[in-house]
């Protein structure tokens, strides 16, 4: 017998035979089968194939298979599920570290145990040491006024601000003494020439 020319229906026959076709397709196949002897023969062949392999397949011990399976409630939590909690604890630890460091630095500032020296202040922006005279000039306002600018200027009261302005006006805009290196002649025995 020649094959049916309706390839679409023939493609649906195995699923139909297993009852796995969608309801609409199921109705179409049944309608076609009622008219097509070739497809009826193919369905009969499909059922024979299934029956022949069923007969050749031994029965299985289902209970033994189930007993061999792991218990569902004892699953190990995957790493991906643990990651968010680990990240939370790491963030918390980092926060504690930062807060602790800042607090310690604040306490040291209050108790003045490691207050910077004048010479340390007398470093320019690129780390080059300036002369001792300049250092003294830089240190002069604080040492002469007796004001301590530990906090910001905004922390000062109006009286203290006024006192600071008075002190600043008394400071000479020029450096009193030249650095020693500039006072030294470029040529030591200039008079010999």
């Amino acid at each position, binding site marked *: 017998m020649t*094959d049916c020319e309706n390839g679409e229906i023939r493609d649906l026959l195995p699923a139909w*035979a297993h009852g796995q076709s969608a309801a609409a397709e199921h109705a179409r196949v049944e309608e076609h089968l009622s008219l097509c002897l070739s497809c009826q023969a193919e369905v009969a062949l499909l059922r024979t194939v299934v029956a022949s392999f069923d007969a050749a397949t031994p029965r299985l011990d289902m209970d*033994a*298979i189930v007993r061999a399976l792991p*218990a569902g409630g004892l699953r190990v939590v995957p790493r991906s599920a643990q990651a968010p909690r680990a990240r939370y604890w790491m963030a918390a630890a980092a926060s504690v570290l930062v807060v602790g460091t800042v607090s310690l630095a604040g306490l040291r500032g209050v108790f003045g145990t490691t207050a910077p020296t004048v010479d340390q202040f007398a470093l320019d922006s690129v780390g080059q040491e300036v002369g001792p005279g300049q250092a003294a000039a830089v240190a002069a306002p604080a040492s002469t006024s007796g004001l301590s600018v530990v906090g910001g200027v905004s922390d000062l009261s109006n009286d203290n601000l006024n006192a600071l302005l008075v002190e600043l006006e008394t400071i000479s805009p020029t450096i009193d003494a030249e650095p020693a290196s500039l006072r030294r002649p470029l040529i030591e025995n200039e008079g010999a020439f």
Partner: protein
Amino acid sequence: MATANQPDHEESDTALIARWQRGDQRAAAAIVARHAHPLARFAASAGEREQLDELVQDTFVRAFNSLDSFRADSSLRTWLFTICKRLILDRKRTEKRRRDRVELDESHAVEAYDALDAMVADETARRVRRAVATLSPLQREVFTLRVNEGMPYGEIAVVVGSTEGACRVHYHNAMRTIKELLSDD
């Protein structure tokens, strides 16, 4: 998708997996009851004769041990058949190394089915299995998954590692070959 013979109240594999993950071992039993025999039938059609229980059990154990990696975008059935196929291939490789002989080819498959036929009296079934045994391994896998399980081509393609279109061609070629062989007998 609702199918004609599959009632909507039948619990889906996904729901059963969720129940098992909550500790309900009866859900595992339901999954095994649903898929064990089709897996054994697939293995038998692929030429596996010995220790089918062990093969099917290994398939389920492997699947359940890694259900966390199971993606619901493919069906559990497809996944189980894919694992089963890999185990069958492993067995064949092991057997090949152990016995230092060529892998089961088509002529060997026919002999294997002949051996089974001694236990099965049905003449029609014998002829059908002989015809299926003459197919190439890939054709046989596609044909049996399509006919024995009613699997759509998309799922078959995943299991056998091919394309949907190629599986469709393999199926129709296999069907034509079998019809010709049976009409010749």
